[in-house]
């Protein structure tokens, strides 16, 4: 029994290392990838500075003071890159090319292997983005009125882990659409843009208007970017933060169940119809 466990663990480790190796081989793109967040951050910092400057000092807009909004812009954009996936295309390819056949024998194994590979590739990306995040926080704390409260860190860590899992599951479900669609083209990319916007990855959801904000409050997306960002920026009091974490965890479970349901029904259709 332990031999099999060791063998299974070895497979996961190999996948993890493959993902990491892949990322490391592409040196230039590895170093440049957090740069993709630079443009939106610059845009938003410039925009908010100008917009708040046109009003009185200490103003709030959309529920944020100027410094809070700047902090949100920086953190949300970096977190957006941090929780980003990309394996939905590979998952779709696996389904289409019929490579899933070999994985049918061990459904949990496939899921696990994919996570391992994804985690490996993510590790390199995360390290770089994490450094940028830490750096920006230092700048924010020293240059603006945002205080540094170490107390938020454990809550943030938890929120971040949940955000990673939740986003992973959301896009896992997106990838599973491959069971039902013959071609997806750019659908995944279109969905990604919409999901990121709904997660507060571009602007806080209050910018989208009260009605939109109310609707989006009922959906899981805000827990992938907006919620962890606000926790880190100290905008959420301990009580609501705890409630938020619980809700985040609940959504993660719901999506895990959904993913499982989609996987099973998709496999049934796959086995019956072929790819």
């Amino acid at each position: 029994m332990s031999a099999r466990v060791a063998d299974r663990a070895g497979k996961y480790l190999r996948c993890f290392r493959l993902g990491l190796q892949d990322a490391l081989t592409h040196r230039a793109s590895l170093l440049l990838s957090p740069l993709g967040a630079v443009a939106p951050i610059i845009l938003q910092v410039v925009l908010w500075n100008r917009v708040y400057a046109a009003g009185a000092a200490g103003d709030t807009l959309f529920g944020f003071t100027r410094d809070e909004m700047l902090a949100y812009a920086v953190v949300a954009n970096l977190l957006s890159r941090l929780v980003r996936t990309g394996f939905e295309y590979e998952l779709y390819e696996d389904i289409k090319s019929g490579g899933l056949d070999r994985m049918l024998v061990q459904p949990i194994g496939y899921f696990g292997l994919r996570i391992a590979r994804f985690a490996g590739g993510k590790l390199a990306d995360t390290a770089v983005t994490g450094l940028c995040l830490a750096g920006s926080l230092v700048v924010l704390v020293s240059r603006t009125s945002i205080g540094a409260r170490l107390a938020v860190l454990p809550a943030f860590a938890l929120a971040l882990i949940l955000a990673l899992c939740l986003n992973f599951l959301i896009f896992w479900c997106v990838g599973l659409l491959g069971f039902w669609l013959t071609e997806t083209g750019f659908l995944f990319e279109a969905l990604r843009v919409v999901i990121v916007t709904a997660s507060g990855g571009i602007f806080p959801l209050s910018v989208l208007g009260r009605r939109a904000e109310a609707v989006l409050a009922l959906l899981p997306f805000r827990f992938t970017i907006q919620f962890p960002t606000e926790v880190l920026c100290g905008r959420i009091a301990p009580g609501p933060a705890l409630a938020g974490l619980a809700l985040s965890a609940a959504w993660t479970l719901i999506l895990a169940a959904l993913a499982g349901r989609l996987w099973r029904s998709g496999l049934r259709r796959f086995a019956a119809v072929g790819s």
Partner: protein
Amino acid sequence: MPGVCRELAKHLRVYLILARMNAMSQLAYRTNFVTGILMELAFLATKLLYALVAFRAGRTVAGLAPNEVLVFVGAFITATGFYAGLFMMNIFQLSGRVRDGSFDVLLTKPVSLQFLATLWRSDAGMFLVDVVGGVVVTFIGLARLPGPFELWRILGYVFLLACGAAVGYALTVLPQSLVFVLGKGGGLASFAGSLWELNNLPMTTYGRLGRLLGTYLVPIFLVTSFPSLFLLGRITGAQIIWGAVAPVAFLLVSRLAWQAGVRAYTAGGGA
């Protein structure tokens, strides 16, 4: 001189044939075509969010009324049609083509190599979505502003947009030339793409240093801000001159960079 004209006419003819072939190829894949348009619309909406902020905040942004910001965003969307529809695909595909050898064959054709490598693929769907969408947004913004439509302003706008597109093209060729030296170009291409995004806001919102850099060093602001400033009657004479001269200068610089890159490829270690 007539030789140059003949060559230009030939390249234009080849380009039109390529555009047609690209469009036909894409229409063969309906889903890709439709979802591509959906994706482009999604991106278009996120660009509009920046104008939305100005409207909802109900304030001027660096002295520009929200409707004026809308005009700038419209120009940005139109210019993105050129970038996403005509230039972008080629940037992303170049390193792959260099690696799998399909670039080599282009070297043997009696047409400009730069032309073939940078303009081979085009996406009529994305081009039209952005150009039409951008024009609509600009028109809406302009219509909500006081003052009549003046034909000469619109003509000048179109001219400066074309100049901006030329500058944009030159700015995409520059990083592509590095592909020959650096190998995998994906990271570089997305970095170039993010610079493009900075045009989402009017250049006047940026600080003095940013404005200078974006006008003279890496003249991204020529692409959307200059035409918009002209349309809104806020442009200076010096800017008009630079807006017409810069494309020529940068096309030349990018051409030299391209040639140096190709020389490195054909003579070099064979990355």
